[in-house]
């Protein structure tokens, strides 16, 4: 079986290269390479010319996350046809299912063969994998040579952000992730509580009281175990300090961070001032809310997100971010629930945005065709025809451009039966600045979307800093462990005494090696800042 497969692949490659040779001769092959000024007849013998290099047809095998939509084969065929014409390569596209990412992703890289490119993202341990040598280093000269469109479109600082230990291992997205965390409230309950405007999450006490009094089937904050659990707590902390996450470990963990509002970027552990008092402030409010019955008692076992329960009238509040909340608002409005969006901002009224390493493509360390991968993704990410194809599918079948220049669905196609729904195929890194707006967004969401730029600040000390935890991996593991046990109850407010809970937490974090982690973060952060200047 294996032999047969290899043979088939061989024959396919031969056939493809033959076709390519022919097409190269007829002058099609170097169409995209004009930007480099490397025409076959320049007669430069120092380096093989582009089209000569592309004479060998290649199959690029790679992995994205998620699930291939039903319409994928058709889109892939169209994509490969274009790629074959432009750079004499085709893509063998595979997916790592959402449930398997944790286990399968590092393993695929560890096999070291049979893989050319893979989706990478900071939240998917890009830094960790890169520092362990999983990815091919992208040298600036290669980027300039093989990715002309990308180089033109992207802010040069993005490449800085993608660096790990001073080297680039990711082709980041061009358009930064611009979103804030948000709270969604119901207008009818706001009226019951006598609220007409909510500027800040901490003001929703009366709202939660109204939920409790008038809606016995609803819980004010119906948190789930994965995402929502620390969310209200973190929103509350943001009243006092520019907290967006820590530099050393997962989203649930307590660790080492800085004030995103502080341009000098002083590093703190989360159980020392000023963080400690910000945490205690948040913990105090959460405890009040929990004791008053505004929070569900058992978020650890609840697997349904507040935003889903919100739509069903089981949660008074929905948590999410500017991007994923769109569907919730749409569904709620469809049920006649009028919504109100409160962004969660830092004390200065801003939210740090502009990260570009939340999704990109990395090349496997042992890829035999890294240049071709770069060429391919230069097109896929930046060429409008590729971008629309990979993100929205086939025009006329999966999407249409409406007369008012928005993106809509063709007649007879609904969101449910669309075989290639936008965003679903894992090409989240394409240049979204090339998109037209969606025709289905509700007004309240469009308003929020418009206001985003007012909140946006990309001016924070460690933009693009990636912590390499290799030296303190034992301590990081223990921090994660201790946080789960001692910080989770604080997050939901289920503690008897806030001060005591923090003493306990601090004690356990310290014995887990918090100081050591802080010292390591400090050292790397100093190096980062020094280089930035």
């Amino acid at each position, binding site marked *: 079986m294996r032999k047969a497969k290899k043979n088939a692949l061989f024959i396919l490659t031969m056939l493809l290269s033959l076709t390519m040779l022919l097409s190269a001769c007829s002058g099609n092959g170097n169409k995209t390479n004009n930007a480099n000024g490397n025409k076959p007849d320049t007669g430069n013998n120092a380096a093989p010319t582009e089209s000569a290099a592309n004479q060998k047809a290649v199959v690029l095998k790679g992995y994205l996350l998620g699930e291939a939509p039903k319409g994928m084969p058709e889109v892939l065929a169209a994509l490969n046809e274009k790629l074959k014409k432009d750079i004499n390569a085709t893509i063998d596209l595979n997916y790592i299912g959402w449930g398997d990412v944790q286990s399968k992703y590092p393993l695929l890289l560890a096999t070291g063969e049979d893989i050319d490119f893979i989706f990478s993202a900071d939240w998917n341990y890009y830094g960790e994998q890169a520092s*362990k040598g999983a990815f091919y280093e992208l040298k600036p000269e290669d980027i300039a040579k093989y990715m002309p469109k990308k180089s033109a479109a992207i802010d040069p600082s993005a490449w800085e952000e993608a660096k790990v230990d001073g080297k680039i291992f990711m082709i980041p997205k061009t358009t930064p992730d611009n979103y804030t965390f948000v709270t969604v409230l119901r207008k009818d309950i706001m009226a019951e509580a006598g609220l007409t405007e909510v500027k800040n999450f901490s003001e929703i006490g009366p709202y939660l009281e109204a939920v409790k009094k008038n809606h016995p089937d609803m819980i004010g904050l119906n948190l789930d175990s994965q995402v929502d659990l620390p969310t209200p707590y973190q929103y509350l902390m943001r009243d006092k300090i520019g907290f967006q996450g820590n530099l050393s*470990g997962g989203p*649930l963990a307590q660790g080492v961070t800085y004030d995103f509002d502080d341009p000098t970027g002083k590093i703190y552990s989360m159980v020392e001032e000023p963080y400690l008092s910000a945490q205690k402030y948040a913990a105090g409010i959460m405890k009040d809310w929990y004791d008053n019955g505004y929070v569900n008692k058992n978020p650890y*076992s609840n697997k349904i997100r507040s935003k889903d329960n919100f739509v069903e009238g089981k949660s008074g509040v929905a948590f999410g971010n500017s991007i994923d909340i769109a569907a919730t608002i749409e569904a709620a409005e469809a049920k006649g629930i009028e919504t109100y969006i409160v962004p969660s901002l830092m004390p200065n009224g801003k939210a740090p945005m502009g990260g570009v390493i939340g999704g990109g493509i990395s090349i496997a360390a042992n890829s035999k065709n890294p240049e071709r991968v770069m060429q391919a993704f230069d097109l896929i990410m930046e060429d409008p025809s590729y971008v629309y194809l990979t993100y929205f599918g086939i025009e006329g079948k999966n999407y249409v451009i409406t007369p008012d220049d928005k993106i809509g669905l063709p007649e007879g196609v609904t969101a449910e039966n669309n075989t290639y729904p936008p965003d679903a195929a894992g090409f989240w890194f394409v240049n979204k600045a090339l998109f037209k707006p969606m025709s289905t967004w509700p007004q309240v969401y469009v308003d929020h979307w418009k206001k985003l730029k007012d909140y946006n600040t990309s001016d924070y000390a460690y933009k693009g800093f990636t912590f390499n935890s290799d030296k303190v991996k034992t301590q990081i*593991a223990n921090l994660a*462990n201790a946080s789960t046990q001692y910080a989770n109850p604080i997050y939901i407010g289920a503690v008897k005494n806030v001060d005591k809970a923090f003493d306990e937490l601090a004690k356990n974090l310290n014995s887990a*090696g918090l100081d050591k982690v802080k010292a390591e973060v400090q050292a790397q952060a100093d190096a980062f800042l020094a280089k930035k200047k």
Partner: protein
Amino acid sequence: MSSKIEQVVVRTPKKAKRISPLQELRKNWVLYAMFVPIAVFFIIFAYIPMTGVIMAFKEFNYRDGIFMSPWNGLENFEYFFQSGKAWIVTRNTMLYNLVFLGAYTFFSILVAVLISETYNRFFKKAAQTFMFLPYFISWVTVSAFVYNFLNYEFGIVNVFLRNIGLEAIDIYSTGGYWYLLLPLLYVWKWVGFGSVLYLAAIVGIDQEIYEAATIDGASRFQKIMRITLPLLKPTVVVLVLLGLGRIMRGEFDMFYQLIGNNGGLMNATDIIDTLVFRSLMGTQDFGMASSVGLYQSVLTLIIILFANYLVRRYDKDNALF
């Protein structure tokens, strides 16, 4: 292969008191040949990849791969033993598994014996099929059900308790309930499985023994106590020994789905596997992941060798090896 063996065998002295391995092979070559398929399988799919266990002592990086990555001594074990919880979770894992094993064995035998005493075919079929159903319900779903029935605010049980004027119970903040609930759920999920095994052993018993006992005037209960249970003993011993072989491997899915990251319950319900999972969530490190696995393996090996030694001493035939 056999001809080669024969050549060698010819040269060995024949009348040696202890049979040499080659003589043994020659004598029973058919039997050994029958073992070859499974042996080959386990060499390929278990023993060869087992060499990767050295990763527990390595600082893995992708460039050098498993075997060439630099050694780092016992560093990969540090996080576990420095967590301050190593003893608690080891103890919890062992105790939970012992309770599970005991309860599971007791109920499986009980059900198997009782089913063998019922004669209505339809009843038997229905009962056994029903008992298999929980096996199909994943722990995620079980956890959703438990949450649905027992959550503090709207759980059916608590709504009922409040309606009759009693205090609602908050199982998700009280470790004590889980000492009972977890074994119950475990038995519920696996009793269908276990009872089938014991039932197969019961129907494997020679009917002539029962017939003889009936002629001697033994009652049904006597037959169970004097024939069925004693003849089940070998099966029980083997199944319990095999169960001990998993004593350090926690039922991760069950604990993780039912209890999750519930900090308040952790000292009561934390097992090795959940601790490791929680600690390594943010650090994809192959070495650290395999180190604790090795710790579990070594402990299990010691326990199982000891248990097997005990069995061998008192009941040689029923030992595992």
